[in-house]
């Protein structure tokens, strides 16, 4: 089965639950005391989609979103971006548009965007109407879901939807132009100078 590596980056204000969403997806657990700034370096999970395997390489912000100091490297080569807000905090929904703008500026042109309203388990203190968010997502042709990292609601569905939206053959990524990763034990084809 063909394996495709898909980089996915997370965006959104501090505290909306980005790290918790990734943690739920990759490790299927939830830590209410997750360290607010310290992130994970590199997270992966492979899921089957039709006759392909999609290996998600997930980039978390590691706190660099706090003062809007994400580096262009963060967006580089992403197949999808998950932009998260907190349904119990109106201002995290208003800043969503800035993250979309930032993504348009630095991200790849054909990136799949998913707008994610997290903490949907806290419906009684909701400040953002589902319909308003859905309308906004539709207006920018983005995926829309409400999730709960805490109660494992819609987390897998979010990634399945991303798989569905990603173009089936991406010629630009399979071209010979790709570089390589440095490995600890690189190829030891023996050449000697002279």
């Amino acid at each position, binding site marked *: 089965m063909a394996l495709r590596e898909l980089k996915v980056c997370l965006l959104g204000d501090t505290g909306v639950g980005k790290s918790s969403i990734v943690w739920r997806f990759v490790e299927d657990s939830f830590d209410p005391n997750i360290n607010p700034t*310290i992130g994970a*370096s*590199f997270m992966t*999970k492979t899921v089957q989609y039709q006759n392909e395997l999609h290996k998600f390489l*997930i980039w978390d912000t*590691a706190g660099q979103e706090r003062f809007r100091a994400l580096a262009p490297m963060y967006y580089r080569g992403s197949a999808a971006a998950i932009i998260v807000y907190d349904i119990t905090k109106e201002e995290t929904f208003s800043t969503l548009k800035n993250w979309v703008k930032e993504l348009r500026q630095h991200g790849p042109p054909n990136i799949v965007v998913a707008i994610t309203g997290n903490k949907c388990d806290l419906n009684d203190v909701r400040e953002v109407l589902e319909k308003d968010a859905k309308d906004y997502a539709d207006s920018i042709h983005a995926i829309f879901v409400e999730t709960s990292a805490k109660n494992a609601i819609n987390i897998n569905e979010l990634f399945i939807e991303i798989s569905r939206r990603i173009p089936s053959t991406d010629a630009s990524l399979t071209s010979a132009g790709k570089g390589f990763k*440095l490995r600890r034990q*690189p190829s030891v084809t023996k050449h000697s*100078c002279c």
Partner: protein
Amino acid sequence: MNEEYDVIVLGTGLTECILSGIMSVNGKKVLHMDRNTYYGGESASITPLEDLYKRFKIPGTPPESMGRGRDWNVDLIPKFLMANGQLVNMLQLTEVTRYMDFKMIEGSFVYKGGKIFKVPSTEAEALASGLMGLFEKRRFRKFLLSCTTFDEKDPKTLEGVDPKKTTMRDMYKKFDLGQDVIDFTGHALALYRTDDYLDQPCLETINRIKLYSESLARYGKSPYLYPLYGLGELPQGFARLSAIYGGTYMLNKPIEEIVFENGRVIGVKSEGEVARCKQLICDPSYVPNQVTKVGQVIRVICILSHPIKNTNDVNSCQIIIPQNQVNRKSDIYVCMISSAHNVAAQGKYIAIVSTTVETSDPEREIKPALELLEPVEQKFVSISDMYAPTDLGTESQVFISRTYDATTHFETTCDDIKDIYKRMMGSEFDFEEMKRKKCDIFGEDQ
């Protein structure tokens, strides 16, 4: 930012970002700020192309032939990574390499008698090379073998040479090597910029030759690597490492004052607020009164629509013009990369010429290199001062990095990092210190 930090770092150049990463990984609380809106300072790759035109005050906008501005990431300082060098070691130990993709530089060339020759990378290439005559080749081969098997701790391999006393000049004599071979060895393999090394003990030179041949052995075509999207990815990668270990990042922060108490740094003032710290790391631009000028480098960024002549149309290469060949004291370098590295629009090449300034007419000094590149579509010339700290930081606890020099690799940058680490921590830098302290890689790749 009204908090107390162990270390504040000013400037997001490569040196500062690597040190920031090391400090965070080792549990220090770090605040890292830059006055610019982007990462990288002097080691940034400029994008889009329009910004490069503005930066160099080229009138108008880039012509249509330059393609899309966003496809360009132009380094201000040309360098390659030695495949077996210290920076690659740091990238691997910290796993920052996971954030980046690399390509090999396809060839290394040396200038002799007005022409350029490939630095041989295989035995067959060496035999066919026009760089030296047949007898010289044999003697040179013996010399190389002796260098690569040289082990400081094993006297049997030394063949009567005292690595700490015998000069390199005497070492060359011992192997009966001629001037051309000496030039080629010292400048294209040991990568010295001047001939001062000849009268130094030979150990350093032998180690450099070993580094070259071990780097070459790793990937084959040349000893050099280059990251896709430009060198500016390197500081960004180490900044991410620092952030993952709790480092706080702020860009676009005007730095108003470095605050001292009894001659010792206690904080940094920005936008009216003071962040307190015990130690400060910064690049020379943040402390103009605590650095001294140590020289000048000229760098000319040239945009071409063709590969460099007589290089077999490689998409990337280095050309070294040894000082002797052009009656100078220091070598001239050309580093070329292209659209294959996601740094230029399709079909475009970026060749950067650089050297240490020796006269009052630096543009004239680099003419032999420019002649190799003709025709050049657009040139961007910079002549920049190099600075070094006047103060080692023992009293003030302010640790200042050195300006990037004219070398075309990162070995001297890594030496500076190790030196600053030692002054800050009071102990020798150990690469193991950079290893991630906890498991932070999850999923199938852990």
